[in-house]
């Protein structure tokens, strides 16, 4: 779980390569846009999926964002990586669609107002937890449940960072929140998902109790 520390020089090399590719695309070699998209299409899709949580919407939004990226390529300044720029477009589009969906369903926004301290459940002993005892399918279902149980603002950040493997800066760009906000939410999201997971899976096996504050 080490963050990908890209060396300065390597980063410059990537930016340089991108600049050349983009110049060619803008000069009329449109087909080369595929080369720009191919390495990041998974991240584009999962950024949309992290926010929208349905395959069909995530794909539509991904395609819209990729199209927008092409049409707006001239406005891309090249100060950041192309991926960061495109991911922020995807994040924007996905959140817009989510808002529309909400307005339609009149669903209440279920984000807790308190982003402060979070007290994780105290586990007697992690190593005693019989991970092997859980069937693979049950394990997958439990993980999915834990993820679904997270309030949206925490699920987004967790999916982007720990499943999608965006770095902190990219996560911040995709969600349009500050880097410190990413870190604060990530801490809470990670502790929460662990709590949901262990409390649902193993309350039978271990004496769980809430840690005393």
């Amino acid at each position: 779980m080490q963050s990908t520390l890209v060396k300065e020089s390597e980063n410059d090399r990537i930016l340089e390569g991108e600049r050349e590719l983009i110049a060619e695309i803008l000069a009329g070699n449109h087909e080369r846009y595929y080369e720009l998209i191919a390495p990041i299409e998974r991240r584009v899709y999962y950024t949309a999926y992290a926010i929208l949580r349905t395959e069909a919407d995530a794909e539509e939004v991904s395609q819209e964002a990729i199209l927008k990226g092409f049409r707006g390529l001239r406005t891309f300044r090249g100060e950041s990586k192309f991926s960061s720029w495109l991911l922020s477009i995807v994040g924007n589009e996905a959140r817009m669609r989510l808002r529309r969906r909400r307005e339609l369903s009149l669903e209440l926004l279920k984000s807790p107002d308190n982003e402060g301290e979070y007290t994780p459940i105290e586990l007697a002993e992690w190593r005693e937890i019989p991970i092997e005892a859980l069937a693979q399918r049950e394990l997958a279902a439990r993980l999915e449940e834990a993820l679904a149980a997270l309030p949206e603002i925490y699920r987004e950040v967790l999916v982007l960072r720990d499943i999608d493997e965006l770095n902190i800066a990219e996560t911040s760009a995709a969600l349009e929140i500050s880097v410190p906000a990413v870190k604060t939410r990530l801490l809470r999201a990670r502790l929460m998902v662990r709590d949901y997971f262990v409390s649902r899976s193993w309350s039978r096996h271990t004496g769980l109790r809430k840690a005393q504050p």
Partner: protein
Amino acid sequence: MITLSCEEVRREISNYLDDDMSPRMRRLLEVHLEQCRKCAVLLDSTHNVLVLLADEHRFELPAGFSLRMRLMLAKEFEKQKAD
């Protein structure tokens, strides 16, 4: 010697997993983890759940995603050429 409280360790767990902290903070945290079973278990279990979650979600893109994307773009390229 300065030591961290369990609460301070808890606050840094996410940064620790990301290796996003000063060497000094890392040392202080590791000293605490060696002595505090409770925090060591919290770190282990959080790390393990995240690894499981990531493994379980190595899912692929929806079938045909790339193809549909290319077709959509091809249409756009055609349109731009026509204009």
